[in-house]
């Protein structure tokens, strides 16, 4: 009785195409936005903002990007952190060296990443399945090598590029709260764009390709165009996320922050959160970013029993174990839990 889909009468085309046709969804989203924009500054401390909420939002954004590619278009990518690195370095160079405004250089970083991603998407036109998955690892290694060896970008193997102070329209972005707002605005705008993208012609074409690309081609969907577009959009999101996390969290671009492990974490977010679900990307992003923090906190409360290297091992064991556990219990991801909950709320408190 709580979650009701009945009583929604669509009288106009506009109402039929609304992004959230059910009033409860609409109010829920508005409530979440109010909490995120107005409530959080009162609820969260600086520590929470800068080391939990910002990474959570940014990695969710990157996971969302990967979800377009893997969950919607059905192409696996094991080298996605490399596209984040491209975005990070590109936006830093645009902002630091060429003094492009911050917002534009973040978007520019995304565009450069999109261009690079499109190039590495070309093999997907010929190669499928696990063969493609392994060949996307090439992106990770080639980009890592390129960024460290091309002196113009990073200044050599051990080079890092520090972020200059951030300024948007004359405002200095220095406190965790301001950084949080910057990230939040990007995430909200790009998520809205993404939500609309996947219900447009492009999104439907992606899903057709995911379900069976031969059949999709026969009904007239251009594989060339849509597969490359999926790689481009996905790397654009990754690039923007890479730029954001460098500016607001790491403070310096360093290739180690975007290594292969991060790529696996991103893939883990998509699969654990739920493939082909925008909400799932946020669940997955939250789960994988917060898990190590909670394990750490948990260990610290029982402190002193563990040595640090043993703690790192415990973290690996718990992390790996939980991934397996969630895959066994909920193979379609955490987003499926939300659907189940909706199903239940539709009837509650009546048995049927």
């Amino acid at each position: 009785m709580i979650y009701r889909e009945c009583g929604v009468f669509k009288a106009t085309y506009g109402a039929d195409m609304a992004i959230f046709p059910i009033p409860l969804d609409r109010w829920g989203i508005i409530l979440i936005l109010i909490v995120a924009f107005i409530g959080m500054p009162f609820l969260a401390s600086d520590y929470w903002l800068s080391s939990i909420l910002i990474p959570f939002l940014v990695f969710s954004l990157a996971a969302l990007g990967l979800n377009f590619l893997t969950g919607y278009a059905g192409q696996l990518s094991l080298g996605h952190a490399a596209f984040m690195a491209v975005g990070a370095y590109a936006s830093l160079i645009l902002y630091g060296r060429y003094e492009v405004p911050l917002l534009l250089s973040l978007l520019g970083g995304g565009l450069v990443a999109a261009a690079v991603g499109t190039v590495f998407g070309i093999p997907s036109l010929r190669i499928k399945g696990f063969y493609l998955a392994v060949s996307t690892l090439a992106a990770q290694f080639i980009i890592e090598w390129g960024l460290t060896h091309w002196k113009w970008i990073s200044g050599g193997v051990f080079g890092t590029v520090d972020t200059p102070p951030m300024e948007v329209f004359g405002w200095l972005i220095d406190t965790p709260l301001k950084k949080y707002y910057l990230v939040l605005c990007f995430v909200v705008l790009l998520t809205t764009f993404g939500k609309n993208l996947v219900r447009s012609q492009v999104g439907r074409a992606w899903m057709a390709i995911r379900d069976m690309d031969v059949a999709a081609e026969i009904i007239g969907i251009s594989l060339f165009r849509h597969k490359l577009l999926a790689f481009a959009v996905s790397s654009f999101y990754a690039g923007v996320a890479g730029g954001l996390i460098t500016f607001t969290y790491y403070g310096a671009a360093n290739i180690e922050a975007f290594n292969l492990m991060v790529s696996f974490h991103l893939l883990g977010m998509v699969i654990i959160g739920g493939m082909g679900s925008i909400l799932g990307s946020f669940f997955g992003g939250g789960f994988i970013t917060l898990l190590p923090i909670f394990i750490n906190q948990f260990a610290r409360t029982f402190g002193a029993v563990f040595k640090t290297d043993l703690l790192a091992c415990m973290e690996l064991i718990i992390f790996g174990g939980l991934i397996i556990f969630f895959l066994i219990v909920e193979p379609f991801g955490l987003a499926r839990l939300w659907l189940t909950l909706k199903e239940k709320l539709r009837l509650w408190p009546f048995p049927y």
Partner: protein
Amino acid sequence: MIFAIEVAIGGLLVGVMYSLVALGFVLIYKSSGVFNFAQGDMTLLAALALVGFLTIFPLWLAILAVLVLMIALAIGIEAIVLRPLVARPPLALFMATIGLGFLLQGIGQGIWGTDPKGLNIGISDMPFEVKGLMVSQFDLVGAALSGALVFGLVWFFQKSKTGRALRAVSDDHEAALSVGIPLNKAWAITWAISGVVALVAGIMWGSRLGVQFSLSLIALKALPVLILGGIDSIPGAIIAGLVVGASENLAEVFLGPYVGGGIQTFFPYLLALLVLWFKPYGMFGREIIERV
């Protein structure tokens, strides 16, 4: 010219050791359709366990103990991870093996420590001369061992009853079940075999590079070998290993200096991409004919 041949031979011998790791992937993919990303971590675990057991046992007993451990591990993985995930999408299984990799890494390093350890099994790494070419004795032993393993496995899959049962399972799970092949046992056997392969790879790579975390990254060198040869082809793994080993060595020595070096990390991937563009299922992989 002599130098080029030496470089190529060195590469070929290293390539055989790549195929050793790639074999582990092929075995599991061939008989259960699972892309086992934990192969590198299994190699690390086997090497760590061997070093651990060597402190209390003589060599042969230690190897036996690790063998038992790997088989027990295979049975455990089958029962705890794979059985609940039967008939789930391949991607879920793939992700589960990534999780398994983290788990094994944590367990291995938690028990035997994270510090790098040496592993000496009594084969010297001194190069010797054959008709004017310098060849490492260690590489030769490694290559011979890998060769023997590959021949053994090919015989096993083609001729023995169990091997044929495993191939039937890989063709079609349900059909294999319906003619009375126990699926759970077949998978446990496969994982045990790939555990043994991991042990051999762990011994060879461990005594070459030392036993430490980076040993598990050897899997990343085996992956281009895997797709170049074809995910489900045992001969493919060995031939692709040779091709990758020789070409990456030659590329590093003769091409590397022009672009700043370190191209060994990604050259095999470029090579694999190039070949896959023309043969999308690798050199010897089974081509999947798609029907709508």
